[in-house]
């Protein structure tokens, strides 16, 4: 087939494609979507980092055997796993933060809510990971003269670390998807941007299809990264 006619055909296809209103709406707003995706990523990364710190502290508290610490960690974990994130976001933004940090932004509230929520799940993952390490390891370390804390830090946690990587990656993906709920407090992340565009153009299939695709690319990247980390750890 001559090159020229191929160009005419493909040109026609592109022309007729561009005649679809939904595609036009989506393609002219691609930077708008990506801007929302950046905010989604910012909230996700911050929440994951803070959530991991919180989760580690809560998990260690829970297995510490110290009554007040166990009690505190249990209340925290139970509350944030036992209530919907959606409700937590509204409670924190409209209820709790105005009392303690009156000038806080919706971004702050979004990160605090997602971190606290994720921390509770991470705590249970870490606790399960630590308890999955053979009991004999702790006994052996203790019999070598290590203190309880030394044994935990140098023997148990490095082994638990490998066990918790896959469920942690899972949790990170969940955090990324759950950030869509912060749309309710007007944090203009990917989902709210989709909603805003959709409320004026009504191109449901194109807009939500694009939003879903961008989320998918982000979560897929995370899981590929997770697989890579897992493989590297297995070879160690």
């Amino acid at each position, binding site marked *: 087939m001559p090159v020229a006619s191929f160009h005419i055909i493909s040109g026609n296809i592109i022309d007729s494609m561009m005649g679809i209103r939904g595609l036009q709406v989506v393609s002219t707003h691609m930077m708008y979507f990506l801007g929302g995706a950046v905010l989604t990523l910012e909230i996700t990364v911050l929440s994951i980092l803070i959530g991991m710190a919180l989760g580690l502290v809560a998990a260690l508290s829970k297995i510490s055997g110290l009554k007040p610490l166990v009690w505190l960690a249990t209340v925290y974990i139970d509350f944030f796993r036992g209530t919907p994130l959606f409700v937590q976001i509204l409670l924190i933004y*409209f209820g709790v933060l*105005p009392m303690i940090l*009156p*000038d806080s*932004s*919706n971004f702050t509230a979004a990160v605090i809510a997602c971190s606290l929520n994720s921390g509770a799940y991470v705590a249970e993952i870490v606790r399960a990971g630590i308890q999955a390490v053979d009991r004999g390891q702790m006994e052996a370390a203790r019999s070598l003269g290590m203190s309880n804390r030394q044994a935990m830090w140098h023997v148990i946690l490095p082994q638990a670390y490998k066990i918790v990587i896959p469920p942690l990656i899972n949790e990170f993906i969940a955090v990324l998807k759950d950030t869509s709920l912060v*749309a*309710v*407090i*007007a944090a*203009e992340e990917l989902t*709210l941007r989709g*909603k*805003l565009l*959709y*409320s*004026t153009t*009504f191109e*449901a299939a194109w807009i939500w299809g694009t939003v879903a695709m961008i989320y998918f690319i982000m979560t897929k990247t995370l899981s590929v990264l997770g697989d890579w980390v897992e493989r590297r750890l297995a070879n160690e």
Partner: protein
Amino acid sequence: MKRTVSLVLAAILILGMAFAVTACSKKEQTPTPQQTDTTKKVLKVGSETTYPPFESSSANGQYDGFDMDLIRAIGAAEGYEVQIQSLGFDALIPAVNAGKIDCAISAMTINDERKQSVDFSDPYFNAGLIIAVAENDTTIKSLDDLKGKRLAAEVGTTGKAASDAVKAKDPKTTVKTFDSVGEAFMELEKGGVDAVINDRPVTDYYVKNAEKGKVKMVGEEFSIDAQYGIPVKKGNTAIIKVINDGLAKIKANGEYQKIYDKWFGAAK
């Protein structure tokens, strides 16, 4: 012991299945328009029911408000049973187009943008926009004062469009968009924004009730386009005719005025 546990589990499962079956058969019994043609026709109506005094849900789960009374009166005048369901404001037009509901009544302003997607009934209400600010605010007195300020509005409303228009004039302006106007007022009350732009009758209601003493209205009523209509699927002339006939009837027999007085009599 084990046997008791499994017996209890089995009992729960069987009960659950029995429930599921009755629930399903109940669903099948709910009248669809085709089945009830001989008795009473059904008009399926969608509404975003957190917009008092136009629509709200009362403690007993009933939908109340000017729009609700109006559509029920229109239905009654035309021999329809009105079934109202609560949807997000931005989901109303897609639901109409997907045929999930016959029409929507939700203080929706008729504008060209929406007319591209749906057909509207005759207008049934005139409403302009108004600015609401915190009670102690002295800097905002008119639309011009909003430039560079933090604004809040409900997604998909003309108030949101007006807020965006302010932002277009001065990019330093920020616009926060919420799912319902109630959250926008909460944001105003807690100092997260400087002003809310919204339909006058609704803002009026909030200022006199929920936000009494915390929020006030400033400036003149203004609008981009200010008439409410009832959207139906494009080309659905049958339903448009029913609605317009019903509306004309209740306007002629004084019922429209009665409903108007019930919800706005005290305010005006």
